[in-house]
């Protein structure tokens, strides 16, 4: 790592450092890195704390030794088998939601352009409902239904909003409309179903990380890892779209293909989360905006948003499990409450401007 010649230094108004390794190079924003480091540390602490707490509390040092592979058979069972999948999933799925929110908000250039507002969540719920009610689905079938529902909804929104290319604002308006129709369809499905099936569907629909074991966690983790890499690759061209289509094309970006690729990656991220844990609202909406207030960079940063999403969902899941003694809430209920608080805060912050 070498610093650049200070006599010929570009002053961007932000503290940056340039990383150079052979021919590879990258400009890094120090404030963003600090924010990311704090969020990552917070996420790690949350992971350890949530693995430690529960009906059988385990001292933090024992948790750490167990995680490092030095545990007893008892702590191994509780920490590694029972609690770790859920805690890890909270972080990874939260990260996926944050990244997906960042992608859509960047694509639509609008803080409301998140997958839960533009209907992909609701569509995934519809897909899952159809499977639960018609086929009485297993976990895999429900996950498949959710995935299909999310993708089909995205396709419909994309097709309806497409007119001589794709415009972000059209996508939001069409998405909200499609989302509203799907929400009524979902209600109708639940009303028509038998009571027990309807209950099961409603529980799934609240969004929960309960009952996740390694068998469900591993496929989701692998998919999220692959999508994460694709999202990072796509971000290099994707962030050019923030300049407007004409300027982005003039700078050598194939705007329509980049936008399509980014949409597919963003939808796949959301759909994976919904398939694994049900529709979890507000994380994708809030994470990119919250972290932006901390990093104060322009645009929506993918990695900071993902880390913020991870911290938000992990914290929400801990609250859902342990905040009210004896009562376990679905994590979706907590994130929705957080989302309400976020909107109030946003309104106050905007009103003060």
């Amino acid at each position: 790592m070498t610093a650049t010649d200070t006599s010929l230094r570009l002053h961007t108004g932000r503290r940056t450092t340039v990383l150079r390794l052979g021919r590879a190079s990258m400009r890094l924003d120090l404030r963003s890195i600090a924010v990311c480091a704090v969020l990552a540390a917070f996420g790690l602490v949350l992971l350890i704390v949530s693995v430690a707490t529960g009906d059988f509390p385990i001292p933090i040092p024992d948790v750490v030794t167990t995680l490092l592979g030095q545990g007893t058979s008892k702590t191994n069972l509780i920490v590694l088998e029972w609690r770790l999948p859920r805690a890890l999933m909270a972080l990874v799925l939260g990260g996926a939601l944050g990244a997906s929110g960042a992608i859509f908000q960047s694509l639509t250039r609008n803080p409301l352009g998140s997958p839960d507002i533009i209907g992909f969540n609701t569509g995934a719920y519809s897909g899952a409902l159809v499977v639960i009610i018609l086929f009485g689905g297993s976990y895999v079938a429900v996950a498949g239904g959710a995935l299909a529902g999310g993708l089909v909804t995205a396709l419909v929104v994309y097709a309806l909003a497409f007119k001589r290319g794709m415009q972000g604002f059209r996508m939001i308006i069409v998405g909200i409309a499609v989302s509203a129709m799907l929400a009524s369809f979902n209600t109708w499905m639940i009303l028509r179903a038998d009571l027990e099936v309807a209950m099961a569907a409603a529980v799934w629909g609240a969004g929960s990380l309960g009952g996740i074991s390694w068998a469900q966690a591993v496929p989701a983790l692998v998919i999220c890892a692959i999508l994460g890499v694709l999202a990072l690759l796509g971000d290099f061209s994707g962030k050019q779209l923030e300049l407007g289509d004409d300027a982005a094309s003039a700078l050598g970006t194939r705007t329509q293909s980049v936008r399509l690729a980014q949409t597919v990656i963003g939808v796949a991220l959301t759909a994976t989360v919904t398939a694994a844990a049900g529709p979890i609202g507000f994380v994708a909406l809030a994470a990119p905006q919250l972290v932006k207030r901390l990093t104060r960079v322009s645009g929506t940063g993918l990695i900071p948003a993902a880390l913020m999403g991870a911290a938000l969902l992990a914290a929400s899941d801990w609250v859902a499990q342990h905040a009210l003694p004896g009562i376990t809430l679905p994590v979706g209920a907590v994130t929705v409450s957080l989302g309400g608080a976020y909107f109030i805060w946003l309104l106050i912050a905007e009103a003060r401007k």
Partner: protein
Amino acid sequence: MDTLLPEAPVRDLVDDFAAAAPASEREPRLVARGVTLGYDNRVVVEDLSVEIPEGAVTVIVGPNACGKSTLLRALSRLLKPGRGQVFLDGRSIHAYPAKEVARRLGLLPQTSIAPDGITVADLVARGRHPHQRIWQQWSAEDERIVLEAMAATRVLDLSSRHVDELSGGQRQRVWVAMALAQQTPLLLLDEPTTYLDIAHQIDLLELCRELNRSHGQTMVAVLHDLNHACRYADHIIAMKDGAIVAQGAPNDVVTAELVEDVFDMPCLIINDPVSQTPLIVPKGRSWR
């Protein structure tokens, strides 16, 4: 500042030609042949051919909706012709990879959006995108060229300011700096002086001419103001109803008949005492 010229081979090419022939006689690099342009099913330009003179400032003028911006969009690859082809260096512009075009041809679009909260230096740095790769996002050369582009457009002092807090004139200079950082031998500008006051319009046009004279960059601009076009163009292209009516040096082609024909506006042409170019004085109905 000569380092702002394109990569060495192209630069040598430009120098060789410069030695051999005056700017206007060099082989044109950007050519449209028989292009038909339009949106959806509405044809705006039909069967138009044009060659952009190399190393010169070309200005396209014409009344509203005559197809001048449409032509510029086609020349910059933003619009694919329904029929005909646009050639860049002898090859169809659509046959190149997108980034390759962006290394040869820059465009200042009519509407650009600065991501909110972006600083001047960061925005100008975006102009380096066609020269960067995912693992190579900020070379020492990138930094040097961005600084040079900002010096050439006199925005270095603004470098850490937020783009949204600049005046219209400053902002437009920043966008030009971004296009310069792209280091393209060709630069197209779509109505770059719209929304600027008269002093900033002149300032921007002077800047374009300076850049053309010092870097040999070929420029093509769409302008509304005929007098500005006459002053700053080496080559003027007058369009009407999607066709080229006249083209050439302003002193040769701009006549009262041409202006009346193209803009449907009776006028008097006098000699601009400062630039020795045609100056159009509209007659209007009130003074006839």
